[in-house]
């Protein structure tokens, strides 16, 4: 274990830190400042342009919507009058992402700990590669795999959950049908976001100062106590950032959900019943045949997803900021 951690300790800080920037700024500094400032500003401009475009097209659609855009669970922008709302989509997006996070985060932390602190080097390196490779598989392949392989297998799990945990309401199966439901989508999303969370978390765990761990060991702590007392607190903000990256992918995942889910415009708390839908899946399914107005309606739903993603990221930033005292900068 020791060899693994020693070898993967962070490289020593670059020595040029001592040469401070006091005195005249050199031309190279100024150029670099300009470049990075330009990059930062252009990012803001691009984001504003996207938001502006979405808001403009969404405005056209929402002004003609005959129902409440936020609470209606129906999607018929081609109807007369047009009726559409995002209630089902928002519900499905949030629920499937939450399921994915509940499954993926603990597993990812486990894998990251195993690779960084438990596994012998010979196993850790290939395992890290394999997890990296999972991120390289395109989402449509996850979708096909999910639809052809995962769904038939989850049928059994679904009946089991229904039989023994049916009393929990969420695992009660009220409708007929194969396992093409939000629960399956959540499991699939969990597999898809696993590599992102694992990777970032592993990197963070490897950054834990050696002194912390060795000090704990010297005090007689077991390996688990070392992890609990130095690795996890140090890595907490990293874990949160990693989870948010994963959540971002889960919220926006399109093709895999479109292939696996059997969508319908019904909000149901019974996770095992086929039905529900997500923003991205709905856009993928309806975009081809939609007319101009239908596309505006879909863009309006995209705007809501955009806002949800911004809120989630903002919340994550706030959490990380509160825990600054644990971050690597003070170690």
């Amino acid at each position, binding site marked *: 274990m020791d060899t693994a951690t020693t070898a993967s300790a962070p490289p020593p800080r670059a020595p040029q830190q001592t040469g401070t920037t006091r005195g005249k700024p050199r031309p190279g500094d100024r150029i670099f400042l300009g470049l990075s400032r330009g990059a930062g500003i252009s990012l803001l401009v691009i984001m504003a342009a996207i938001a502006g475009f979405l808001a403009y097209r969404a405005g056209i659609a929402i002004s003609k919507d005959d129902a409440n855009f936020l609470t209606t669970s129906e999607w018929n922008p081609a109807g007369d009058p047009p009726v559409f709302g995002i209630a089902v989509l928002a519900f499905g997006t949030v629920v499937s992402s939450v399921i994915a996070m509940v499954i993926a985060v603990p597993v990812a932390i486990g894998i990251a700990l195993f690779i960084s602190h438990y596994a012998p080097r010979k196993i850790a390196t290939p395992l890290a590669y394999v997890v990296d490779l999972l991120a390289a598989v395109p989402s449509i392949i996850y979708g096909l795999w999910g639809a052809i392989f995962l769904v038939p297998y989850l049928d059994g799990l679904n009946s089991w959950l229904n039989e023994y945990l049916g009393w929990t309401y969420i695992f009660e199966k009220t409708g007929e049908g*194969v396992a093409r439901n939000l629960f399956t989508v959540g499991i699939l999303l969990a597999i898809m976001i696993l590599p992102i969370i694992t990777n970032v978390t592993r990197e963070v765990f490897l950054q834990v100062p050696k002194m912390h761990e060795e000090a704990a060991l010297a005090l007689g702590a077991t390996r688990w106590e070392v992890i609990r007392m130095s690795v996890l607190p140090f890595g907490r903000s990293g874990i949160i950032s990693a989870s948010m990256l994963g959540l971002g992918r889960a919220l926006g995942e399109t093709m895999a959900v*479109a292939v696996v889910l059997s969508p319908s415009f019904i909000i149901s708390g019974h996770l095992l019943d086929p039905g529900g839908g997500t923003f991205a899946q709905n856009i993928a*399914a309806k975009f081809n045949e939609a007319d101009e107005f239908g596309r505006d309606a879909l863009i309006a739903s995209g705007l809501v997803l955009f806002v949800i993603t911004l809120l989630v990221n903002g919340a994550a930033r706030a959490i990380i900021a509160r825990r600054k005292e644990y971050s690597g900068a003070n170690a």
Partner: protein
Amino acid sequence: MKLQRKNGLRATALGALAISGALVLTACGSDDNTATGSDGGDKTNAASNIKCDEAKGQILAAGSSAQKNAMDLWVKNFQAACSGVEVNYQPIGSGGGITKFTQGQVAFAGSDSALKPEEVEESKKICKGGQGINLPMVGGPVAIGYNLEGVDDLVLDSATIAKIFDSKITKWNDPAIAKLNPDAKLPSSSIQAFHRSDESGTTQNLHKYLSEAAPADWKHDPKSKSWLAPGGQAANGSSGVAAQVKQTQGSIGYFELSYATSQSISTVKLDTGAAAPVEATSENASKAIAAAKVKGTGKDLALSLDYKTKAEGAYPIILVTYEIACDKGNKAETLPTLKAFLNYTASDEGQKVLTDAGYAPLPAEIAAKVREIVPTLS
């Protein structure tokens, strides 16, 4: 460690390349379920009679995926006969096709519903001095496929179908089904009804059929391209619905006939009120299209289909796709190719190959009208 990480990246990149390469290759094997036997024979015979006229260069077209298999056959035959000509049809959906047409990006669009009045207005910008017109070109039956062990011959009527898809009939041994099938051993299992999750002209045509033939039992918006009834399960594309029906015991769903034949899924016979229940075949669909009336004016041949027909052997759940082009003001460089191609597709030969691909040829009278109009395009 530095070195290690680099190697890791390289390994990841290689692996990603290998996997995505494999995926790109597999992605090409799309849901093209044209009966492979159909191209061999027709190709060489058909090639001799196609008039190429002054066709040259490439034309772009886009639209309905319902006629994709027919278009593939036509394009192959046409290109084999006329050297140096390329017809590029992108099956991106009717809505997308019409949008591309009104933006002037394609020579013609394929659509499974006729242009709406506002779309005709918009087409006038592209068609200088003229407007977009609908030319019916491909007909096809929408089959109701089912998977029920021990039942080979299922007869349903429009009201029962409406109730099944609206989740009002949920068991196979429901009295309404039993009455239509006195000899069948119907199980007491639940009906698993499958519908399309994407927007589609197939769904729209089923909606129109149900709301005209069973108005009391189907109250949903007939013009909607997306499924509006609650309940049931959904799958993406006709291929998706067919795959689910094939896999799932006690299921029922709707798709173009070719999907049923290629996967040997049993199809429902319709009790239309005619003397005998009607099977979903190309021939029977043609009989039902023959009952349609032209509702378009001038050169526009938009059809109004008769879903309530009781004619003997007419299968009324039908879909007609149109090719949409300008009557005047087509682009000079694509016009000869456009005319030559549509001439071929509307010809007897062009229509004949449709049967092999699971579609229905146009009735002679309508095909004749299309053939009259195509040469006048300018």
